[in-house]
């Protein structure tokens, strides 16, 4: 589903964020993405939702070479991806309901077609009582849950989450993780960037660790059975 082939990314100001990454991420898998702050986790995710394009090597997503696809194709492919942003990226002038429904509205669906789905998602993230509230009146954790509901409402093929449990209490964190596992169980591909190594260990899912611009996979299918301790340096990428 996702193939990195010698993929590198250098920002215009010269910072080499990723170098020579070789990696296959299979459809229907669940991965955690870890690494020190500033290591390139967000950059890695931005490559996956086409906000950036590789400056070297090749990246293929859904069988499409990201360096060759048009803007129209990018928009079409983004509808197959649900993203939970670290900074939420909600529209403050719209209600919680409309924010969650946004991917469906943009896709041209009518309200009577998506209303039940949206309400069900809001129930999952325990925000049924905030349907008509607007983001400026929500707490950080509530905004996070709106973002998660929006990312999942269209049941996308690929779900990318950047610190999805960073702003919520442990109980809600567990609930959100259960939601991600449920999406994974339904056959969706899920990649979650997190600093919460305890949560990563408990899940037993494979880990992609980014450090110094390289990506190493640990856990099932990787070089080790457990995620590395904080500060461990991956020697190279594995396939």
């Amino acid at each position, binding site marked *: 589903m996702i193939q990195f082939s010698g993929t590198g990314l250098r920002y215009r100001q010269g910072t080499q964020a990723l170098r020579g990454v070789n990696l296959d991420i299979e459809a229907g898998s669940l991965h955690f993405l870890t690494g020190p702050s500033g290591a390139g986790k967000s950059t890695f995710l931005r490559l996956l939702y086409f906000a950036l394009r590789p400056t070297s090597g090749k990246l293929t997503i859904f069988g499409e070479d990201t360096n060759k696809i048009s*803007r*129209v194709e990018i*928009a079409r492919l983004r509808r197959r991806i649900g*993203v939970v942003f670290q900074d939420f990226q909600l*529209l403050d002038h*719209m209600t919680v309901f409309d924010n969650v429904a946004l991917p469906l509205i*943009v*896709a041209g*669906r009518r*309200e009577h077609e998506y209303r039940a789905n949206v309400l069900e998602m809001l129930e999952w993230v325990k925000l049924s009582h905030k349907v008509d509230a607007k983001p400026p009146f929500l707490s950080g954790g509530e905004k996070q849950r709106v973002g998660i509901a929006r990312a999942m409402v269209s049941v996308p093929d690929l779900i990318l989450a950047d610190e999805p449990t960073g702003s919520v209490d442990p109980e809600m964190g567990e609930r959100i993780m259960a939601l991600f596992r449920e999406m994974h169980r339904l056959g969706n591909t899920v990649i979650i960037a997190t600093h919460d190594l305890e949560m990563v260990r408990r899940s037993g899912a494979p880990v992609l660790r980014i450090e110094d611009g390289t990506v190493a996979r640990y856990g099932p299918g990787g070089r080790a059975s457990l995620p590395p301790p904080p500060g461990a340096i991956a020697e190279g990428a594995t396939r």
Partner: protein
Amino acid sequence: MSKPLPLPRDWTSTWLSLFVASAMGFLASLGVVVSVGADRLADSWTSELAARATVIVPAPSGQERVTPEQLAAVVEVITRTPGVAGARALSQAEMAALVSPWLGDDEGVIGDLPLPHLIDVVMTGEDPRTEARLRQALSEAAPLAELDAHGRWIDRLRPASEQVRQLAFTALGLVGLASALVVALACSAGLSAQIAVVDVLKLIGAQDRYISRIFTRRFRWLVLIGSGIGVALAVLMLMGARIFGMETAGTVESVAPLLPTLEPTPLLLGLLALVPILFALIATLAARISVRWTLRRREG
């Protein structure tokens, strides 16, 4: 069709767009009024002169003055000529008024001078045969009388009136172009204020044309309403000018043909009604180009 996506209330860009569209709509309306007025003026200059003539009747040899009977006979001959709508000999007072800039207002002095009599001739149209018929009739009835058909004035006025017309339409074109640019800039500024919305929509998979449609709809309405207000203000001003006698044509009857008219004819009102529609089209185009350009620039 899914429900239209609302945009955040951004009072700054809303009021800016409304104000700019109103101001430019007002200016464009004035441009239309002046251009149409200048066009009419150019027409009236030549048509007024072409439809009129002056017959100069000097005293016959051996006589100091033309007698009223002789003058009446010449007027009669002129009036009977086909193509002539009417003829009238200028009174002593009118003659005095004509020469007063040079000789002063003393009618006694003017009355002593051997001035020729003038007959103002109004023709039914611009038929060149009328002039020939008049010359023929005058050569038989009053050989000394001279016909001034204003040909040399018309020859001078035609290029001048054409220049006035071209100048007016060039000015209108410039006002239109300036309006288009200002409206485009206002749309662009409005879009910049909403850039966060654009980014979110892009990230969740909105096509460029979907985002463009949201913004063009907003700016089309703002500019349509704003320019409509501007046109309405211009029409009110036009009506006010007529009501309060600011319209110069008509204040001095003798120079009326030389001044533009502000009469709200159906043509003028129709052209004014087109201003908001044209502005809305410009705003649609400007917003579409701004959105596409901004999206391309942000995605690199």
